[in-house]
């Protein structure tokens, strides 16, 4: 099946219309993608949605708004503008010209990095596919779909790299990205966290706040890559990723606000009976999503990460702003350490092998900003409760802390004690059932569900009661 007029159908700044290789690759991939979207994308039938489409990378072009039928969304391929003088900023190739081609030596590693990143993008669409059925407002429904189409576009971005630079194997890997499915028992997504369904909107907001933020940091390190097309792709993706995190930040903000309003109205913490979400449940959701997102950073000590850095494939967050030699040959950092007796101390390790740990710490600091913001809402309402990030050691399945159990405060406890107290730390079946019970769709313009406050502003200066989505 030939795609007529590529540049019209697939907005891009990669000369798609002139590139035989890309055209050939996309000719078979594009229909498979549409097919995948139909089968694995949002289940709620819609006529059109008020979406932002990137049509070029310029100031005005990356955010064009309008009602579009989702299947006709113009998933584009965009790389940030090329800096022709860009030099590699770190590792053994520091100071050399950035690579415009994949060096054969690093082909396998680069391909693997891109496949893993690419695999997470459609995964989240699959995880969130049923959420439209329970959207608290058309505004939120539109945001969900915006996130979904952009995750779809991020898949396109990774597929573009595979198609353009990795030859036959790249095309095969691109096909595989559509064949693995979140939660599938036969062919699951690569990373465990992306095989869990996002069951409700509180989880969705937590996911976009915490898990998409992990994505931001991973993209940030790939943005530093010596492989320039990957760097430029990730730079542009980061723009869109920030919107996803905005959905999370403001979503949780509005949930907290609504809970405060109901608490004030009824003068009680026990607001479940009034159709709002108690703060303790919000904290438990936060505990869960934060801790599983920390796992996505991998082991604290990682030779893979060290190799990726040394070979120039993956840098640090804001690499060029780091005030060191960008080689890390002899630098050391302190990381957490578990003694034989099971005590948490610290030890010095080579900074090169501790890159995952260093990146995770940047992430933790960033996560704290949202918590601070939500706590301001609590303060504003005079509520004597504060949300907090649990300890790094809490509920971990990856890294040194996977060997122990701790309370959210970081106090080491036995596995039995953890099991017994788990319902206090993490969403219990009852909590989940309660949250799910609140998830009833509100599709009426200007209306909103009981458990969440309306946003302060609409999208693109539109009012909250704008018809963001026309249902089918």
């Amino acid at each position, binding site marked *: 099946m030939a795609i007529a007029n590529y540049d019209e159908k697939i907005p891009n700044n990669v000369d798609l219309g002139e590139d035989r290789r890309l055209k*050939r690759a996309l000719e078979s991939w594009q229909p498979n993608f549409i097919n995948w979207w139909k089968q694995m994308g949002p289940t709620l039938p819609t006529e059109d949605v008020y979406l932002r489409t990137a049509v070029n990378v310029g100031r005005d072009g990356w955010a064009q708004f309008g009602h579009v039928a989702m299947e006709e969304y113009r998933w584009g391929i965009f790389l940030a503008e090329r800096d022709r003088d860009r030099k590699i900023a770190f590792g053994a190739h520091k100071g050399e010209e950035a690579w415009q081609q994949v*060096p054969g030596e690093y082909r396998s590693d680069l391909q693997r990095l891109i496949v893993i990143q690419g695999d997470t993008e459609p995964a989240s669409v699959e995880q969130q596919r049923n959420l439209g059925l329970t959207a608290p407002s058309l505004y939120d429904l539109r945001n969900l779909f915006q996130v979904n189409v952009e995750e779809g576009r991020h898949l396109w971005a990774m597929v573009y790299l595979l198609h353009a630079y990795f030859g*036959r194997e790249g095309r095969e890997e691109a096909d595989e990205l559509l064949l693995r499915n979140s939660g599938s028992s036969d062919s699951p997504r690569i990373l465990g966290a992306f095989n869990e369904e996002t069951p409700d909107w509180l989880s969705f907001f937590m996911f976009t706040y915490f898990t998409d933020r992990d994505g931001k940091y991973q993209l940030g390190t790939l943005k530093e890559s010596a492989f320039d097309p990957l760097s430029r792709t990730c730079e542009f993706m980061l723009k869109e990723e920030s919107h996803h995190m905005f959905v999370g930040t403001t979503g949780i903000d509005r949930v907290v606000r609504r809970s405060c309003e109901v608490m004030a109205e009824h003068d009680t913490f026990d607001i479940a009976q009034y159709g709002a979400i108690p703060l303790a449940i919000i904290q438990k959701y936060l505990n869960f999503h934060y801790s599983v997102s920390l796992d996505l950073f991998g082991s604290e000590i990682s030779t893979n990460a060290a190799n990726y850095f040394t070979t120039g494939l993956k840098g640090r967050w804001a690499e060029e702003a780091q005030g060191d030699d960008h080689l890390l040959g002899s630098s050391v950092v302190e990381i957490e350490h578990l003694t034989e007796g099971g005590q948490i101390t610290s030890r010095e390790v080579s900074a090169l092998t501790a890159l995952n740990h260093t990146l995770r710490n940047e992430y933790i600091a960033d996560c704290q900003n949202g918590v601070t913001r939500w706590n301001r809402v609590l303060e504003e309402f005079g509520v004597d409760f504060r949300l907090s990030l649990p300890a790094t050691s809490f509920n971990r399945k990856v890294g040194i802390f996977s060997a122990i159990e701790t309370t959210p405060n970081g106090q080491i406890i036995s596995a039995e004690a953890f099991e017994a107290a788990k319902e206090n730390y993490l969403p219990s079946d009852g909590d989940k059932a309660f949250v799910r019970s609140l998830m009833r769709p509100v599709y009426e313009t200007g209306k909103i569900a009981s458990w969440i406050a309306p946003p302060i502003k609409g999208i693109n200066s539109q009012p909250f009661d704008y018809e963001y989505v026309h249902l089918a």
Partner: protein
Amino acid sequence: METPSVTSKRVDFQVDPNSYRHLRLKIDGEVATIEIDIDEDGGIKEGYELKMNSYDLGVDIELYDITQRLRFSYPQVKVVVVTSAKEKIFCAGANIKMLAQSSHQWKVNFCKFTNETRLGIEDATTNSSQVYIAALNGVAAGGGYELALACDKILLVDDRSSAVSLPEIPLLGVLPGTGGLTRVVDKRFVRRDLADYFATKPEGVGGKKALTMKLIDELIPKATFGDDVAKYASQLASSIEKIAPSKGVEFSPLKKVIDQDLISYDYVKIVINRALRYAEITINLPDGITAPTSIEVAKGQGENFYLLALVRQLDDAILELRTNEAEIGTWVIRGKGNKDEIINFDNLILDNRSDWFANEVLHYLKRTIKRFDVTSRSLITLIEKDNLLSGSLFEIALSSDRIYHLIDTEDETSTPSFALSKMNLGPLPMGNGLTRLESRFFGDVTSLEKVQEAISKVIDGDLALSLGLVTFAPDDIDYEDEVRLCLEERAAFNPDALTGMEANNRFVGPETMETKIFARLSAWQNWIFYRPNASGEEGALRRYGSGIRGNFNKERI
């Protein structure tokens, strides 16, 4: 270890009989004699003297040259006597000081070439009715006896002191690794425990004992040695039937130009990419060269007969790159020209196999392609526009570790292709006794039969891929990048691991004496060479001649 100034000198494998320093070739009708008379001061490198008829690469280059000229220039010769011009010593083997000072790479490459020459001697005996006999007029030690073992018969002077020996293990802490151990048991059928005894006895075995142990074939009294050997040789010659003229084809020096990273011959061109450590070897058949109408015409062309000229150039190119370009780890092979003509050449040779000249060209081609099989370089063949590699020359592709076959979607009428010929079905076997197709499809008779049915079909990329004859068949969109990535990736791997992997994958199936020499014996030898017990400061090889014994790490590994 060697100094850079010594290594920077290129080794040239082309020698002229008029300027041999170490060997003499005498022709007397059907009997030829090679006299070993090594010039002590004629080492190919500095730092050692070639005492006691000990040899180095320079001597072996002359020996190889002689074996080649005997087959092409003196086809009437039926018996080749290898003897020494020095008193009481036949040959003391490879020079120990030379081995001790050489780099590992040098030793391994030197031994490989030595092995190939010795197998060539056996090939002459088997396939050219040129039977080599070793006339040991004195001690044949180590490599000296290994050379004798490559001959069909071993005659030893009975002077109560001359002996044959393999003293490497007791004296040097290494193996008789250029075929010696293998030939003792696999060719001369010496019982294994006796072989053990023999190979650990530094002074070796002479006289009747050597005869009883089957280490030699004849014991000849000292007084009549010369006459008896001559008689033995002429009797042997008269028992050999062979139709060949008294005059063969002369070899003049190859026209070879070396200019920085370019090495070119008439039909072979090599361009070296030092940054990515690969050499592009292009085999050309210029327009206008066609297969002669008869073998007589071919013979008339002599050394200029295309196939012979090409093989000589390829042979030299392989040796040149192996010895002088150790860091060029990948050879990228292409052929350019009319591939149909190669099939015509193949038919000319195969239709005239009883002719001595066709026979020699065929076996020379076989030996040369075998060199690819045992070359410690990644071999990547590219089938591109105007591909020449077909039939016999497709064997070079089949010797490669990977074949990339371009599919041209822009111009489907001239998409690259090749054809197979009967040459691919037997006349050019590998050292393991199988054809390269049999090796390629080892254990997969169905695929092999399908390929055999495709003989003389035009095979394009799609067909080649489906038949399993090529590794990848990228189209013109992907091709260049796929090849680039492959070459770049190859350059990044541990060269030693590649050598091991390639040797493992190239040789499947049965073991022969030849594969045992190149794999089992050489691999052990190369490991022993590298161990401190042999080549460390206190190792036996390094200490030989110093009066101090080697100091061994006693662990058995």
